[in-house]
């Protein structure tokens, strides 16, 4: 009997079909990978399968039983468990509380704490997942939090485990662990659905691979009958004519890059010496970091999330204080405020664009003016130059193909990709050409079109002579855009390497092993 059967699922959002007639099934003991670009419908399909959304058409059956739609309880009771990309954990609560929430073991009407803690600890141990059941979830690192999510499902007796882009936030080593865990779960008799857009990973973990494109199921093939190239074609939908390095990187196929000669010292635009600073929690985030970026160079920064990259970006953009030496274009001074950083020619594409880069309730035009609004063409003296601002907005919109092409549209209504293009347009072309561009996870959550544009914009800034710093968790992205890659571990650099360095070496450097080469 099939563990999970989806038949003819259709789900629309405001007239657009996110999932259009998809039928899929998984058997116990197998790992099914679900592959597709962002926006292909993977997350929507899963939300329907687990009962969070009600499908507009089609049925969901678990172990032969029809599941009524719209209530996650039925799916949970039927044994379907989902580990989401964005964790569904309640921060201030403890690990065990998060795991048993909704199904609390009772003793005389109250929660049986002892039993709860014991059961959670046992469930974690059984699958080799190390966890402190009493820790507050918000104090845990990302990989640990993911383990909590997995234990949460296992404790509930999940017989179908759905993992939504689980390795997006993991280091290569942690990702390998996860692949092993997934196979172990399958061997234990569970059905695992592994959603990812990283083809090499998928080929390592899955028994069968299903490809979604624009809401439709394109193919389902056993692992042995396909390879990365064929899968890439299925995902993209067109024969790969002259795919750019971006495309290849995006879908994980390796592609050699022309080597760039090391920059001369005199070209140095950004010099950082012995940089140290603290994190928001008061612990050391950067410890004596030193590096430099030449004019017309892109430096990629690799590292597992939480090793100082975020703080580095903040120091460079005036959002955090630090000690040590920093000089941009010869001016040796730290930026104490974002305003002074901006004044010195620093552009910032922040990690969390909703929080740091965009005022969502304002219009596109207003967001395009942000940061440069005190000068022409946005203002004339103390007054806003409405016409000038409007025209400049139109220019920026068309330069970056932001949709909808309406300067008065509400920024909150734009898709993630268009919002990021807006930010890039503003930072790179909105005012005077920047001298230093700091981009953090610039294409996270973006589809291939938007990714291409953002990468192109970064390259254009580099070609115009700026120093560009790109922080990313995606090694393939770093390889695609960087001229050199700096690896951070625990607040210091473990080495600077060329972009064609292998995953293996990079992975080890990200986990602390110093690089052997210069």
């Amino acid at each position, binding site marked *: 009997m099939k563990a999970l059967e989806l038949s003819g699922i259709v789900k629309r959002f405001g007239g657009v079909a996110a999932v259009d007639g998809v039928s899929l099934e998984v058997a116990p003991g197998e790992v099914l990978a679900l592959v597709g670009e962002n926006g292909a419908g993977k997350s929507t399909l899963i939300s329907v399968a*687990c009962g*969070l*959304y009600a499908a507009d058409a089609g049925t969901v059956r678990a172990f032969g039983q029809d599941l009524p739609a719209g*209530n*996650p*309880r039925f799916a*949970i009771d039927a044994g379907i468990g*989902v580990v*989401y990309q964005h*964790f*569904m*954990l*309640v*921060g*201030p*609560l403890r690990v065990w*509380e*998060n795991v048993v*929430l*909704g*199904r*609390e073991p*009772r003793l005389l*009407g*109250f*929660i049986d*704490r002892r039993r709860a803690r014991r059961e959670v600890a046992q469930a974690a141990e059984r699958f080799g997942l190390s966890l402190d059941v009493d820790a507050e979830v918000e104090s845990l690192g990302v990989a640990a939090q993911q383990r909590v999510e997995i234990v*949460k499902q296992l404790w509930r007796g999940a017989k179908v485990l759905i993992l939504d882009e689980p390795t997006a936030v993991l280091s290569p080593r942690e990702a390998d662990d996860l692949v092993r865990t997934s196979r172990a779960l399958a061997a234990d008799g569970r059905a695992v659905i592994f959603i990812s857009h990283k083809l090499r990973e998928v080929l390592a973990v899955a028994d069968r691979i299903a490809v979604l494109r624009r809401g439709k199921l394109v193919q389902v093939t056993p692992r042995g009958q396909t390879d990365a190239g064929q899968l890439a074609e299925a995902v993209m939908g067109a024969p790969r004519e002259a795919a750019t390095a971006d495309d290849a990187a995006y879908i994980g196929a390796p592609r050699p890059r022309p080597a760039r000669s090391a920059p001369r010292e005199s070209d140095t635009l950004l010099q950082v010496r012995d940089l140290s600073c603290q994190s928001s929690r008061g612990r050391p985030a950067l410890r004596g970091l030193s590096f430099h970026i030449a004019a017309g160079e892109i430096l990629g920064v690799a590292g597992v999330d939480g090793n100082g990259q975020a703080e580095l970006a903040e120091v460079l953009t005036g959002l955090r204080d630090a000690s040590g030496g920093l000089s941009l274009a010869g001016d040796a001074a730290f930026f104490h405020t974002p305003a002074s950083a901006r004044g010195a020619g620093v552009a910032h594409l922040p990690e969390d664009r909703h929080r740091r880069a965009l005022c969502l309730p304002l219009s596109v035009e207003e967001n395009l003016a942000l940061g440069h609004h005190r000068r022409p063409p946005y203002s004339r003296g103390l007054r806003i130059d409405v016409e000038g601002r409007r025209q400049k907005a139109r220019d920026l919109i068309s330069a970056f193909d932001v949709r909808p092409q309406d300067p008065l549209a509400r920024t909150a209504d734009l898709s993630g990709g268009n919002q990021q293009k807006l930010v890039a347009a503003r930072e790179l072309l909105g005012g005077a050409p920047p001298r230093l561009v700091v981009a953090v996870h610039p294409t996270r959550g973006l589809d291939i079109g938007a990714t291409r544009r953002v990468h192109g914009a970064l390259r254009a800034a580099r070609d115009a002579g700026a120093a560009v710093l790109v922080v990313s968790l995606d090694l393939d992205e770093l390889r695609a855009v960087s001229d050199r890659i700096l690896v951070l571990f625990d607040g210091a650099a473990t080495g600077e390497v060329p972009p064609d360095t292998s995953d293996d070496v990079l992975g080890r450097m990200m986990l602390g092993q110093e690089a052997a080469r210069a």
Partner: protein
Amino acid sequence: MNLILDFAPPLVFAALGGVLSERAGVVNIGLEGMMRFGAFAAAAGSISTGSPWLGLLCGGLAGAAAAGVHALLSLRFRADQVVSGIALNLVALGLVTYLLQAVYGSPGVSPPAPALPRDRYGHTAMAYAALIVPVLFHVWLSYAPAGLRVRAVGEHPRAAATLGVRVLPLRAACVLGSGVLAGLGGAVLSVGILGQFDARMPAGQGFMALAAMVFGKWTPLGAAGAAFFFAAADAAQRQLSFSLHAADLRLEGVFLALPYALTLLVLALGIGRTRAPAADGVPYDPEGR
């Protein structure tokens, strides 16, 4: 010190009401209005039935009804919660004044209402309740399954929803509960302390209760403690101005202002970053992406 036990219960119950609603993630600025409805309904109920206990019941129900409107607007229609609370206060202000005039023909006070009996120490049952209920609330919030769910729903409703917790009904229940508590608080004012309804009730105590909730970091024991502290400050102020013949010096105003100023000072110095539940005030959309 007897005064404290007398004057604290309205604040305590209203503050607990605030905690219940906000821990579940629904901002409740309408405590003042709910107390007002409760105070009037309690007096009216007590007058018409002759029993202050039935009056108390009416007070609680009236508070719940008012809270029901707030819940409807905030949860079902996802209106802005602060605005809804303020609207509730405004409606309560006008409607109750109107009803006082319409039902009892007097713009100032209602006729005397049978009041709660006092024991040999001079305390009503509600005074003791004000000591016990916060503890019960704390135990429930920390150790009962429903309490855990309420805490989860106030911090990360979507996480709770994925585990099958029904967010909106739970929040609605908490808002109604907070209305009952605030209504009871108001009822104590008219039927427990004064023995009639006064058109000015609750004279800002609903807002004081909000301050107590914030002061108490959104915990039942903290909020109740803060409420007792405020009541104590109030009582002290009365003692002081009485004994110093401050009336002659026309310094009443300074003493009256002192508790509020002190609260502000403590808020400014001690607590600094007040941390409300993370999802407090954010409307929950079941199908939000």
